[in-house]
């Protein structure tokens, strides 16, 4: 029988447990010691969910490490998605506050240690700034099997190419669909196989 105790009564116990858990600063320090600041580029703590930023080309090494290291054991990839930081409206661009770029966000959880972590990878919106060429990041599907479908979805909707992915096909949109709908500058098609769009 589990009973969720009152907040007031559980502070002592909670503090004890929390002291055993690694907080984001500890994890960041551990990763910096392991990989250096060229790979672990930033730690952002002023957020509801603090995150650690990692260089795209090293994401596979970092994720393999945090999954297998006994202190971290992030065995569950809860969510993987892309975010397009771009404001297509020229008038609103000044207020937008972000440089145009794309992020891949990895939300992780450890069933052993019951702690979670957010990793981010920053990519250009287009590879080498050639419009139409998708940005690339190594796949983590060899580390967590759940990444396989999530990366396919992110490729499909956000237009990010995951290198070394076993089967990078569209998953939600039809295979002959053009464009990547979650891009901020995506144009809705006028028609698809004779079906009227907008």
């Amino acid at each position, binding site marked *: *029988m*589990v*009973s*969720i*105790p*009152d*907040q007031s009564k559980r502070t002592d116990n909670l503090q004890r447990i929390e002291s055993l858990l690694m907080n984001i600063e500890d994890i960041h320090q551990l990763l910096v010691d392991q990989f250096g600041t060229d790979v672990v580029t930033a730690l952002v703590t002023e*957020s*509801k*969910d603090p995150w650690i930023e990692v260089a795209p080309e090293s994401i596979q090494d970092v994720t393999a490490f945090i999954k297998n290291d006994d202190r971290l054991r992030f*065995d*569950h*990839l*809860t*969510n993987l*998605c892309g*975010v*397009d*930081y771009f404001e297509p409206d020229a008038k609103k661009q000044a*207020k*937008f*506050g*972000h440089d145009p770029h794309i992020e891949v*966000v990895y*939300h992780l959880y450890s*069933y052993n240690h*019951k702690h979670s972590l*957010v990793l981010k990878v920053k990519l250009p919106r287009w590879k080498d700034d050639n419009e139409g060429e998708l940005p690339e990041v190594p796949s983590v599907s060899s580390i*967590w*099997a*759940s990444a*396989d*479908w*999530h990366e396919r*979805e992110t490729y499909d*909707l956000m237009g990010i190419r995951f290198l070394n992915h076993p089967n990078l096909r*569209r*998953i*939600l*949109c*039809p295979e002959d669909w053009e464009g990547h*709908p*979650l891009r901020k500058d995506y144009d809705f098609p006028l028609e698809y196989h004779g079906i009227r769009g907008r």
Partner: protein
Amino acid sequence: MSMQVEDHRVIEYDVRTDEMLVNMGPQHPSTHGVLRLLLRTDGEIVHEITPHIGYLHRCAEKIGENLAGPQWIPYTDRMDYLAGMNMNLGMSLAFEKLLDMELPEKAINVRVLIAELGRIASHLVGMGAYGLDLGSFSPFLYAFREREIILDLFEEVCGARLTYSYITIGGVTHDIPGEITIPPGLASLTGRDMNTKLQWMDAVLIFLEWLEERIREYHALLTRNQIFIKRVAALGVCSREMAISYGCTGPVLRGSGVDHDLRRDGEPIYTRMYEGYHFDIPVAPFDDAPPEVVLGDNWCRFFVRMMEVVQSIGLVRQAIEKYPSAQGEARVPYKMTNKLPKDECYLETECPRGQMGFYLVGNGAAEPLRARAKSSCFCNLSITAPISEGFFLADIPANVGSLDIVMGEIDR
């Protein structure tokens, strides 16, 4: 003349069967909606499964980027349309986390009550449809008879039977109703007059009392039924490691022996709701399982759901007990024009089918820059191929059904 076969290849040649591609779905009734499985079979054995999804894709995430929070709620109803209340709750909590909103006691109490009733309704469909997948029609009818009463009760609460949009940012749209006319289903099942007037809470209590008795019958009908056990036990085995690696959550994860439920292990904003409530978290292996059952098989997943119904009944009763003493309003106002901060958050809640996550990125506007709905069934469905390959064609409906998927949530 006796025939002596010296060359074994002769026999092999004789019984050789061709590989065949079989298309299962997207309109096959036992695929729970529009799921298409492309099977490469050799006789009765399935060698390869390629799931094709996306038939219900409505780009809910893109729509979410163009709408303010409260406007997006009706779209979450249509994700997991069998547990609309729980979808509303997950989305609302994500917005509340982003905005640091404090909720009154009453709102939280009503949310627990409604979400757990929703869980019962959803698991009833899971149970009934699973019986249907395996060729037994009656559990489906019983399950829908029971679920109908919950839908009637929800209709009294918010006017809708399936797409509620009742739980909203800042609480629930309005308080639980007082006196109602007894739902017709409940009246006829408990031998009451159709025009009986009673309190909504009392109607729920009458229903729960009646449902509790029925659970024993479901166990006799399915769980302990030898035919059912032969069809599901030791099939579709998903090991603990596989469940974790494929990101399975909810009953699929607990059926594989991982003791994890967000109502206990989730983030404080979610576990706070269940403070002071007592409940068990059913996790396989079960001591009273039939001897044929293996950890992580179809039977375990099914049984976890059945046991969760019992726990949810207890939770609803506790919520009703706490209701009169709960302070405050059922809702704190949230304006459609409320600006979201330049921040982001991710929150998962324990929905009947697993952990549904919402990831929001605010950027100073009322509409989020990114509204991501992470589906639990999406991950649960991805184990279909590894658990079914190498088994019989006839076992596929049993395996897919045990995952209890809803395509609306997978395709979003």
